[in-house]
Structure formats: structure tokens, C-alpha cells
């Protein structure tokens, strides 16, 4: 089980799990519930440079398409092909099997600007969309 206390969160509902210099990115349980059944995921190409809060991937449900933004800047080093093949993983296992991509983090100080789980839960409670 992933330890949610170790994750960092964005206002656009991505989570970031840091392992050394690598940051794994996915969307939160709250986000997957809001967008409902995911039917399509488009991942960034490995090697792509992404900027903090820049668009990095696309997720589509029967409701609409949404952009996934990079929580921190860096280079994409891994992409989870499994979610492209089976987008339902995003709904079934948002924090584990449903991760999207991993970034080689350029500037670790950017992590500090992200929310902790406690901050994030507070953020969604106060009516963010």
C-alpha cells in the first residue's frame, strides 16, 4: 500500500511520489471519482521536457477530456503503458497501478510548493473543482 502521507498534491489534483530524483505522477482518488470512468489516457513521450504546471498528459472519461499537469519540472523518464492499454486502472488503483508517468526532477525545491495530504483534503473540502 502506498503511504499517502508521503505523497504531494497539486491544486489540479495530481499526486507526486518522490523516489530519489524520480517523481511518479498520477491523479488523486478524488479526481478519478469526479471525472468518472476513464476511457482513454494519452501519455507523454519519454524524453519530453515538462514544466511545472505545464500540460503533460491527457485523460478522457465519458464526460470530458482533462489535461494532466506536471507537478514539478523535469524530463519524462518513464510512462506507464499499462494505463494506456487498460484505462480503468486509473479508477481502480489511482495511487498504485494507475500512475501515469515519472519525471527526473530538475529542481527538488519545487516539491515544497506542493500540498501535503492533509492540505489537499482540506483544499477539496473547501469547494475546489
Amino acid at each position, binding site marked *: 500500500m502506498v503511504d499517502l502521507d508521503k505523497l504531494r498534491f497539486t491544486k489540479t489534483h495530481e499526486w507526486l511520489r518522490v523516489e530519489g530524483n524520480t517523481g511518479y505522477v498520477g491523479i488523486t482518488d478524488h479526481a478519478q471519482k469526479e471525472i468518472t*470512468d476513464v*476511457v*482513454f489516457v494519452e501519455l507523454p513521450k519519454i524524453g519530453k521536457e515538462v514544466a511545472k504546471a505545464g500540460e503533460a498528459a491527457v485523460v*478522457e472519461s*465519458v*464526460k*470530458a477530456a482533462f489535461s494532466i499537469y506536471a507537478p514539478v519540472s523535469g524530463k519524462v523518464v518513464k510512462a506507464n503503458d499499462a494505463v494506456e492499454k487498460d*484505462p480503468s486502472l486509473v479508477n481502480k488503483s489511482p495511487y498504485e497501478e494507475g500512475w501515469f508517468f515519472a519525471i527526473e526532477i530538475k529542481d527538488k525545491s519545487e516539491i515544497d510548493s506542493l500540498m501535503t495530504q492533509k492540505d489537499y483534503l482540506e483544499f477539496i473540502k473547501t469547494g475546489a*473543482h
Partner: protein
Amino acid sequence: MEKLIFEISSPGRKGYSLPNLDVPDADIKSFIPQEYLRKDEPDLPEVSELDCVRHFTRLSQLNYSIDTNFYPLGSCTMKYNPKINEKMAGLPQFTGLHPYQPDTSVQGMLEVLYETEQALCKICGMDAFTLQPAAGAHGELTGMLIVRAYHTSKGNPRKKVVIPDSAHGTNPASAALCGYEVVTVRSDKAGRIDLEALKSVMSDEVAVLMLTNPNTLGLFEKNVKEIADIVHKAGALLYLDGANLNALLGVARPGDMGFDVCHVNLHKTFSTPHGGGGPGSGPVGVKAILADFLPIPRIKQKRSKFLFDYDAKRSIGRVRAFYGNTGVIIRAYCYMKLLGSDGLKDATFEAVLNANYLKTKLKNDYRLAVADEPCMHEFVLTGKDKKELGVKTLDIAKRLLDYGFYAPTVYFPLIVEEAIMIEPTETESKETLDAFAETMIKIAAEAKSNASLLTGAPHITPVRRLDEVLAARELNLRWKRPGA
């Protein structure tokens, strides 16, 4: 449930007969190379003429359209399509034309196109129009190409397009297709563009702000003058997505509000058919500073003759073959002539009145998405409170089908949770609006007393609720013979 035509097929049955061959027979292999020939016969349905007629007649009777029932699809302006439009567009003098005929032999057609452009200029407060774009999103792309050409002529195409979070999804798509980076600007609590947020994203990198007015919450962006000033101060342009023009005709003009470029939807605002595949038409209007960039050809009038003018060095070029969906344009022209400027104004007032009437009827049983204030031609409800009862907006929409209504737009705009967006248009009677409101209120009561009526809906349509998720995840569009 009607069977597929493949399923009523019987081997060898025919709905045609051909005369005896009166030329020498030839083997197909003798004139088409082997590599282009298919190996197996195609599995086509084989039915009699009568079976074929009955099959498609039965299917056509399942059609739901504005000619059969109320169609309150928000931001789509599903108004009645007057039959006189069909009659005019069907005149052999129009239908018999060929697009390659010389200008001199199609003066009447050109006059209709020219006058339509002039009328749209007057209605929108713009200086020039092109009728070429085939529909709304194509109009947006044309508008973005014009914006890009304008900035390029100033030495820098710029990088960003600013779009409010309540915008139609086509706006960011059009901007991205044109090579721009999209910057989203949030709405304030009341549902309008947040001026401070707008100021914070404006810079000399921004090419244009794409604004929908009234916006998708059905609210007039009353700060539009100030918005225009902020945008123009940064050297950027202001674009109007004309999807909601039905709230403005004859009353307010985008050009006067500070918009530099706009598209309009003839298939929404100007009563041409919509929703059955169209085709649409998305003319684009511009202020004089942008007129040189309009697509070629332009229609010009010289000494009472009309002609296609290709002489435009700064034009973005062609955006469509020939001159747009002319059959649709004739219908819109007919509509404008039929109503006249006073009639268009009346239609606007009625559209706004109808929306406010329905909003008032529904606001006790449904929650409004924004604070209660007079709306324009449409309004948005949120199904947030119903969700707590275990009923989603989707369930309400499906239940409406059981009562014979087309469902409103749902889950849009994206900034409203469980959104239900209703646009009645001016062409509905009070009786129809009352019947719809009563049904919505009944459904709200059902949500409390018997939620399964909604979650299991629709119950009486030819096809019950479809598994949209399975359909999207495992798209299968091709029928295969069982066992094949």
C-alpha cells in the same frame, strides 16, 4: 428492437433487376489489377425493396427531432427550422447551380451571399465577414488563423491564447491546433470572468482572449468593455465565440463591446438545421484592421456586379472549397429576411424570457449553479443536491427520455458539478415550457421517493441505458455475421 439490415438479409434475395447485358461481357480482372481486387465477396445485406423500405421507415420513425419534440439542449439553440427556408433553399435556381459556373452566370447566388455578409456585419457590428467556414469550430480555427496572421504581420505571432474555464471545449482545441499554448483564466463566484485573474495572465505573449458572451452559465459578461480594454492594452485581440449570439440579436453588438473577431453559428442562431448532422455554417466577422487577413475568395460588388475577389496578399488563404455551405447560407438569409431587424430583436427577447420563465419554474426543486439573477437565453442547474440522494445528473437526463423530452446539455460547463444546462429558445410555447417544467419537478420528486426509477432509466425507449464506458473502452463499430 429493430433488427439490423444484415440480420434481415436472406441469401440471394434482391431489391433490383438489371436489363440484359447489351455490351460484350468482360472479366473484371482484365481491367483492374489483381492487387486492387478483394479476395472475398463483401458481406452485403440482401433484401427485397419492400423489406428495405420498411426497415428504414421504421428507423426513421424512431428519430427524435425539433420537428417532433422539445429539445432544450443548452448552448446549442435548438430552435425551430422554418419550412419556408427549406422551400427557398430547394428552388431549382439554387440547387441547379454548379460551383464552377462563371461569376457572371451566378449573380443571384452571389448577391444572396453578399447580402448575408452585409447583414451579419450589421447584426454583429463588424466590418467584414466570410461565409466559408463549415461550422462553429471551423470558424474558430479560421478566427485563430486570422489572429495569428495579424500578429505575424506585426512581427511576432505571440505564444498564448487565454480562455475562461467556462468556455466550450472547442476553444482550447482551436487555439492548440493553431499552434498556441492555452492559458485558462478562472471565473469568479458569480460565474463571470475574474478580472484580477485576467490581468495576471495578460502579457505581450498573449495573442487573443477567446470569450463567449453571454457565457456558458447564461450570464452576460457585463464587464466586457473593461475586459476589452485589458486585452487591447496588452496588444492582444478579443475573440467572440458566437455560440450564444441568440441572446444578443438586435439588442447588443459584439463589435460595439470591443470584439475584434467573432464567429457565428448559422445552424444555431439563424435557424438552419442542426443536430441531425447539419451541415453547419460558421461565418467569421472581423473589424477593419483584420479584413485583409480574411480567407480568399472574398465577394465584392463592383458596378452592381458581384464577383469573387482573389486579390489579397495578406489573406490566410482558402479555408474551404468553393464558398461555404451555400445551401445553409440561403436558409439563414431567408430567416433574416423573414424576421427583419425588429423580428430578430423580438426573437431575442422571447428567448431570454423563455429561459427566465423556466429558471423561475425550476429553481425551487433544483439548485441553480450560480446566485439567482436574471439569465440570458439559457441557465445552468447543478445536480449536487440530488447526488446526495444517490441520483446523478445523468440519471435525471435519462429519466427525461421516458417522458418524451430530449435531455438538456449535461456535465457542461465543466466548472459546475453535475451540471444541467437548459436553453429553451424563443420558438417554444408557454404550454411546452410548462409541460417540461412539470416533468422536471416530477423527476425531482421521484429522486426523493423512488430513486431507482431514475437510476434505471430510461424504461420505455427502444434502447435502454447504454454502457457508455464499455462502448468507449472497447469501441466496436463493425457488425460481424455470427460465427464468422
